[in-house]
């Protein structure tokens, strides 16, 4: 119990941050027309590619003689980049099609 309380106390800023972000996420998505669900999913998909930064950190601190970490880290950065670049490009391709005829608007 004490461990949990001190855990919360030590990380209170994070807990605020996480809580607020959850509300932001819900608010952002709740009133979106269904036609945009697919691009939105794809866009969110690209954003979680931010995990790439973790892969960069992990590969960046790997010892030059630690081949396991180098190889796995390299793969991590590679697939993370795939997620980011692929995600944003696919989303852009989807949304490009919505753009051509700007008249009409959202219905």
């Amino acid at each position, binding site marked *: 119990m004490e461990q949990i309380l001190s855990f919360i106390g030590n990380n209170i800023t994070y807990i605020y941050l996480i809580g607020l972000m959850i509300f932001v996420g819900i608010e*952002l998505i709740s009133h979106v027309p269904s036609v945009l669900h697919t691009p939105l999913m794809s866009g969110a998909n690209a954003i979680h590619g931010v995990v790439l930064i973790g892969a960069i950190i992990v590969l960046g601190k790997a010892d030059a003689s630690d081949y396991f970490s180098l190889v796995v880290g390299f793969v991590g950065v590679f697939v993370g980049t795939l997620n980011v670049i*692929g995600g944003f490009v696919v989303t852009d391709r989807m949304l490009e099609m919505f753009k051509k005829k700007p008249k009409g608007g959202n*219905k």
Partner: protein
Amino acid sequence: MQHLLEICYLIGSFGFIIGLKLMGQPDSARKGNLIAAFGMAVAVFATLFLSKTGGFQVIGNIGYILAAIALGTVVGALMAKRVQMTAMPEMVSIFNGMGGLAAALISIIEWRDIEHKIKESDVAEMVAVLGLPEGFSIVPLAHYLPIIAGLIIGAISFVGSIIAWGKLNGKIGDFRFAGQQFINAIVLIAIIAAAYMNYHHVNTLEAGTNIWFYVTMGLAIIYGLLFVFPIGGADMPVVISLLNSFTGVAAACGGFLYDNNVMLMGGVLVGSAGTILTVVMCKAMNRSLTNVLIGMAGSNSSSGGAAVSGNVREVQATDVAVMMKYASKVIIVPGYGLAVAQAQHVCHELENLLADEGVDVKYAIHPVAGRMPGHMNVLLAESNVEYDKLIEMEHINSEFPTTDVVLVVGANDVVNPAAKTDPTSPIYGMPILDVDQAKQIVVLKRSMKSGYAGIENALFFDPKCGMLFGDAKDSLQKLVNEVKAL
């Protein structure tokens, strides 16, 4: 330098929030995507070049990193550029899996580091002599949790996404057995137990090799398989959306681990947005999330639905062309068949021809037509169909009684009246397009094969309904030619 890095992360996080916000409106959606991408670029480059503490470059191996990024950029851009519009959902699923894989790999390396450090240090001997001090952990929970959670969630998301990809392109079928839900629950409990055993093992410095980390990983992979296997292909969009939010949470774990705000913000944002998007998609299909996850609909043909019999009336393109040309109002109902046949352009051509004849042509868009919500909108927008001609289900349903001809192009379950009339049908309760209220219905279909839900469609036996068999693109081309020739 550290401050500059934090400011860049702030820009990145705001980019994600603003980008996602703008993506929620059709007019600004593309700009939103670009802003999110810009935020990502700022955050990534800041990590690469500004991560310094006390004058030390924290990020080493910069050559390898840049090489991996370059390779990923080229491959990712090529994959995303080359993919057909119809295969878009599969592509999203693959990219999602890649994110999950990255999260799992990070955890694997981090865990190996911890084990190495323990082995190299003399912590074990010290504890053997002195005993473990009260309240002291070798691997604190706050450090352990994000590593193990990143591993578990990342692995589930990776494996699940690959299965979802296979299901969407038809390489993997549905697979279920009795008591599957029970077994899934057991596997889930086993994952948590193994994760705890691992924590216990490392913190009590037990002798012997610690296999529990890899047991946890193996179980997570198994869970990923079991989780997606029973779910019908038609429900894959919901699953991908859910796995999408999983990957978000996995990324957030990384943010916790490295005290990295942009990872934390981006991850949590996607985690919550993805979850709520999943719920919204389920609502659009009038299904609950549990119902989807248990794999109810889209299961198998024998699961329900009264048998339908009667005569099917086959019609010729010529007759349909005449019917449409002299109609005053035509509604086109596109479905997955339009997408696979790549018939969106010729469909638009037909629409234009009819419009030139003074026919009022509209498209009726069911929220789950195709393989993803919005699939049809994307597809038709590609062939320059005007945005305001695509009418959503709630608005078009009242127009069917005044419609002369409904042209159903490769759609099936979304126009199946069984959803309203037959409580035993697996799709019962799903809102449908009320095409049976129109004066005439023409269905373009390759054969009498049932749709994704695997059930018969009474609509095809309706006396008002005519079937024009063939590939959607060929049939539409024939109609275009006939209308022109008239």
